[in-house]
Each structure stands twice: as C-alpha cells, then as structure tokens.
C-alpha cells in the first residue's frame, strides 16, 4: 500500500501547483470585484511565452517563468482596458481572452512543437526531506512548488491581516463606498487584475517549462477553468482553494496510476475524474449559504466607473 501511496502523494503537490497559482491569482482578481474568465487563455499565453523565452535563452528556467508572468500580465491588461477602463461586460471580455489565448498560443507554438527543455530538478530541503513519509512528499519538490505555497501563505495573510487585503475586499464588496471614502477603485481593480494575470501566466509557464517541459497545443487542458471554479467553490478563501487544488492534483495522479494498472475503464473517463471529483467535493463543502454570502465579493462582475 505504502509503495503506491507515496508516489501518488509526491506527485500531488506538483499537479496541484498550476491550480494553486492560477486560482490564487483569480481569487485576488475576484476579491476586487472583477471576474476574469480569461484564466485559461492567460495560462496558455503564459505557457507559450514562458516556453519560448526559455528556449530562446538556452533553457533558462527563471527567465522562462518570468516571461510567462510578463505575458500573463500583458494579457490581463488587455482584459483590463476593455472590462475596467471601458466598463465592458466582464464575462464577455474574459471569454474573449480565453478564446484569444487558445488561438494565439497555438499560432506561436507551431514552431516550438519539436523543442523540449530540461525542466527543474527537485530541491530536497535538508533535514526535513529526510523525515520518513512526509519528507519526500512535502520537501522533495521543485522550487516552483515551494514558491506556490509561499504565495498561498502570502496571499492568505495579506487578505486576513493587512490593510491592502482589507482594501481589496472593500473594493470588491462596494466600489461605490470605497470611492466615497476616497480610494482609487479603478486603480485597485487594475492592479488586482494584473496580479491575477501574472499568477495565471506563471501557472502556465510552470506547466510548459517545469511540469511537462515541452509545448503541446492546448496543454492547460481546462486547468484555467477549474481554477475559476475552485475560487467560487472555495468561497474566495485561500485555504479552501489550496485544499481543492490538492484534491484535484491528487486525483490527477491517482488516475494516472489507475491507467497504469490497466483497469477495464476507458482512459477518457479516468482522465475526467479529477475534474468531476473536485467539482463534486467542492459543491458539497460549499453548501453553507451564509459562508458564500459573507465572502462573495458583492460587486463581482459589476463594472464601476467613478463619477457617474
């Protein structure tokens, strides 16, 4: 039993990382009252931009990841111009961004299909990684996994304990009131949206540079959408988001192993399992209406222009 369990759990965190990153980004964006449905598109743009950067810099992982972040921010800024500054419908702009991202990444990616990268070796954290069972699962991961979890701590702490977090929640709940007491609502929403784009771009670049270090068209495979769903079902709470992402990661790895066992179940069905399981569990744990109402950014997807 243990010899099956450990590799599954080791893989879980890596598989969860893109969702943690993209989900945290979307959580920040949505907390400010902006619903950006373009996460899938931003991840793909980040993935191809990161991959191209890494290939162009002789395999520099760091530059590649930064390239992914920059591309994600750029993609989010296109969304922000339309949905924030011009107050266009956020759902429509987000969908457009996703469709655009799918197409653009496929177009750029044509010349990168045959390339591959070295990826990243795990960093074993001294002492901790030698703890039996827990050590290899938690502390023999690649650096981006650690980064994702650090970012989780940072975001959760910022939201709960700092004025920045308070302001973000305030703007998301009532942009009118935030404006009335003198905060630049549009600027805050812009920043939150760009931050979300950066996170999504990093998530995409992680997929193409580290997780499976090659470019495959549409390689995010709906992870962006799952991230958006995670944010809602997690009631905009980072810890629930993290748990949801880990659940998805765990089932992803689990079904790979199940495929390897040669069960008489169609592979497609197994591949759908992480999505199904994640949604199901999240629906079940988010049935508390009060929790949702208290945490829902009340102005979500409602445009706000000051002075109207």
């Amino acid at each position, binding site marked *: 039993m243990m010899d099956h369990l450990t590799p599954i759990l080791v893989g879980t965190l890596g598989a969860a990382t893109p969702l943690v990153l993209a989900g945290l980004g979307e959580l920040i964006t949505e907390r400010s009252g902006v619903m950006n449905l373009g996460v899938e598109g931003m991840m793909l743009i980040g993935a191809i931009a990161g991959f191209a950067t890494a290939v162009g810099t002789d395999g520099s992982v760091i530059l590649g990841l930064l390239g992914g972040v920059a591309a994600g921010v750029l993609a989010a800024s296109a969304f922000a111009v339309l949905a924030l500054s011009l107050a266009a419908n956020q759902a429509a702009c987000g969908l457009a961004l996703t469709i655009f991202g799918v197409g653009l990444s496929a177009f750029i990616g044509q010349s990168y299909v045959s390339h591959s990268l070295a990826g990243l070796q795990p960093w074993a954290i001294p002492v901790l990684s030698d703890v039996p069972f827990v050590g290899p699962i938690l502390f023999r991961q690649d650096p981006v996994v650690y980064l994702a979890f650090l970012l989780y701590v940072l975001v959760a702490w910022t939201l709960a304990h700092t004025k920045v977090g308070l302001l973000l929640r305030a703007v998301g709940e009532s942009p009118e009131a935030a404006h009335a007491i003198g905060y630049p609502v549009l600027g805050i929403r812009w920043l939150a949206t760009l931050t979300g784009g950066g996170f999504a771009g990093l998530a995409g670049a992680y997929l193409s540079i580290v997780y499976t270090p090659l470019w495959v068209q549409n390689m995010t495979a709906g992870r962006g959408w799952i991230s958006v769903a995670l944010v809602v079902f997690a009631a905009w709470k980072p810890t629930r988001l993290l748990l949801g992402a880990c659940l998805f990661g765990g089932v992803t790895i689990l079904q790979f192993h199940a495929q390897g066992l040669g069960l008489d179940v169609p592979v497609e069905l197994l591949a759908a399992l992480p999505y199904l399981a994640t949604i199901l569990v999240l629906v079940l744990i988010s049935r508390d209406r009060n929790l949702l109402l*208290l945490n829902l950014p009340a102005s979500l997807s409602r445009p706000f222009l000051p*002075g109207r």
Partner: protein
Amino acid sequence: MTLASTPDARLQLIGITKRYHALVANDQISLTVAPGEIHAVLGENGAGKSTLMKIIYGAVRADAGQMLWNGRQVEVASPEAARRLGIGMVFQHFSLFETLSVVENIALALEGPFNLAALAERVRSVSTQYGLPLDPGRLVHSLSVGERQRVEIVRCLLQNPQLLILDEPTSVLTPQAVQKLFETLRQLAREGVSILYISHKLHEIQSLCDRATVIRSGRVTGHAIPSQETPASLARMMIGRELPHTEMAPFTGTPHTVLQVDALSAASPDPFGTALDAVSLQVQSGEILGIAGISGNGQNELMAALSGEAPVASAAVKLEGRAIGHLDAGARRDLGLGFVPEERLGRGAVPAMSLSRNALLTAHRQGMVNYGLVSYTRAAEFARQVIARFGVKCGGEQALARSLSGGNLQKFIVGREIAQNPRLLLVSQPTWGVDVGAAAQLRQTLVDLSRQGVAILVVSEELEELFEICDRIAVLAGGRLSPPQPRAACNAEAIGLLMAGPQAA
C-alpha cells in the same frame, strides 16, 4: 451678502453650478463657513443639498464656480483629495462595507499605521465618549441603520477633520443622544472645526446652528441666523409655503382588536440580532400604535414576525382573532395585511423595475393575474391610480423605481399598500430620508387611513413623528416592549430613557 472673497473663511463657495442634462441641481450657489462655525444647509430632499455636499467632498465635479479652502482656491478632484484637505463627511446613504467589521470599516478611512487592536480601543473610547456606543468587532451587515450611522459619525470624528459635513445625522438617535451629539459638535466647533449640518429638523437647526443657508430647487433662497427665526419662517424659506401639520380627528367608528400579539418570542436569524422577548401588543381598528426605539433593538425581528417574513408560533400573532403566526408573508397579505418595510430600494421596491412592475409585486392580488398570466395593463392602471391619488412626482408609471426621490418612492409604496384596502398596515420608518412636504403628506395619509377603521402599527426612530401621528406609543428596547401608553401620557424624556434601555441606567 457679498460674494467677494472672505479672507478668514474656512470654506467659501462662489457660484457653484451643476447640471444633470436638463436638470439644474445647483444654480449659482454661494456660501461661506467660518472656522468653528456650525452652518446649516436647509432644504428639501431634491433641493440640491446632496449634490452640493458631493461637490465639496469631491465626489462630483461642478460645471462652474469656485471653491476656496482657507482662502486658497482649490479643485477637489476626489474624495481622497477632500480628506487630505481635512474635509470629513457623514453620508446619508452610508458608505460602509457590509462584510467587514466596524473597526475594519473605520481603518479603511484612516491614514497611519494599520493596527486593528489599537484602533478598536480608540473606537470604543471615542464612541462611548460621544454617546454612540459601538462594538468594534461586529460585522456591519448585522448592524441596524441607526448603528451604521454611528459608525459613520465615529469614523469621521477619528479623522480629526477641519470641516465636518453631517447629512441628517440625528434621525436615528434618542433625544438624550441628540443632546450628547450636539454637545460633541459644539465642542468640536469650539476647537475650531467647521460644521456643515444638513437637516430638515428645524428646531435642531435652531438650537445648534450659528447660521443657515436655505436652498430650494437648486438655488439659495435665503441666509438666516436660525436663532432669530421661527420654525415657521425657516420652513417658508425652505418649502416656499407654511409648514404643514397633521390633522388628527378622533375615530368615530367602533374599535375592535385587529392585531393581537401574545407573548411573542423569537430568536433572531442574525447572530448579532436581538431576540424578541415575550412581546405582547394589540392594535385596534381606527388607531395608530407607534413603536419607538433605536434600530437594532428587535425592530427588524418584530416586523419580520408580524409581516410573515419569519413565521412564528401560530397563536402568537392573531389577525382579527385568527391565528396567523405560522403563515408566510403572502398568505398574510391575502388576509388583508399591508407592509411597508424600512428599506425602500431593494425591499419595498425593486430599483431597476418600473413603478408598474413594482405595483404588481404586492398588488397582484387586485385582479392583475388571471390563470397565471399577468395583465400588465391592469398593473399599469393600478400604478397610475396610485401615482395620481398620492401625488407621486415621477415620469409616469413606466419610470424606474430608482429614478424617484425618496419621498416620492415612499409615497408610491405606501400608496400601493393603501390602495389594496388593508385591514392592518405595518409601516417601518415611514418618513426615513423623506423631505418635509412628503413626510407631512405621508403622516396625514396614515392618520386618515386609520380614521377609516384600519389598524396601523408604525415603527419609527423619529420620536416627533410618533408624537405627531400615534394614538398610543410603546418602546422596544433589547427585544422587550414597554406597555403602550396613550400619547397624552407620554413625554419625550421618559420615552428616551426607555429607548436607551436598562444598560443606560
């Protein structure tokens, strides 16, 4: 009154003009406020006071005119810029964040280090000092309207402003608390803070304010020293005619008990709400029973239990002898209960729907629905009748509810309920944020309705209003109802003490 620059003025407005399409909200408005002066801005709702205040506070830009701040011309581009200058504002429509706690709301408006624990202490001490007790840890969505206003006031006081703008700040306070607030404001004025005080309560302006600027239809119609005027002369400047007063004829029919509430106890669905504790009352046909008290003392829970929004034990509420406690709101309306809730926009009416559609929401019982199909012509006709009968100023029955002023929308909502010929009418805060003329009309309407044999229960935080229209008055404090007393046997001080509840003793 000279318009030349007054060098030692704290704030001077010269020729402020603001147009919204065809409507001129502010037309060449000029006024001057000296340091340490309490200056009243008197005017009806819709007179342009709010627009003017928003211009001063930077939330709206004037089309023309100048603003001088401590003798220097300034452009207040945003509320933030206004706060930087030292202008604080207590909004009439609160600018609070519902899912954040009191102290978090206040922290957002303050500069300086972010330390919630220390701030909570300051909030506690300042709020107690000014007689506006607040629990800093409570979430704003669980606060009553009155408590929310306290948050706004305390938030402003913590900003140490040079100019404090207060928009109808006393409507939710007990008479004692009003006196305390006035002491606070006078103290602030002595310390050099200028105060712009917007109110329609003439006696308050007379007792508090040094000078007054009266605005009607966007224009300044007079400058006055309130202490040298009479309420009647101020009212004339404000509304252009005599102050109306309510005619109370005695009820000539035979009274019978319409609403009977026996030992009604109900937990509050809100974790921070007030549970009702054995509330008993009777309302006879032909009378108005007033329930005084500060919001948050069980008012919401009582209205929910009586209107049917939160059904209770069957026998606890009886309508003309019939136990209705278990019925939902729709079933109770079928039996002749009318209800005007406190929030006009969002509860009494749907802001984005036309008056005609809003009429349909409760008046569909008046033959507007046949075999499940809505007759929009009948709804429109009903709405037109309400508009005509109650003098609702609006752009017709297709006007959106949110396009009406507070007073006119309230007239429409009250009218909608009355036009359904209820046997019992529950009204919560009938004239909240309503201008003097409309308020007088609403009060007279309620009195007239009761004299036709309808039983009316009014919950209000405005004591003067209850004294004006009620036959009997009871006080709800801490979820308990005091025994109703005939109006003649009540006085404001005694009611005020009951309102403050046992914790004040």
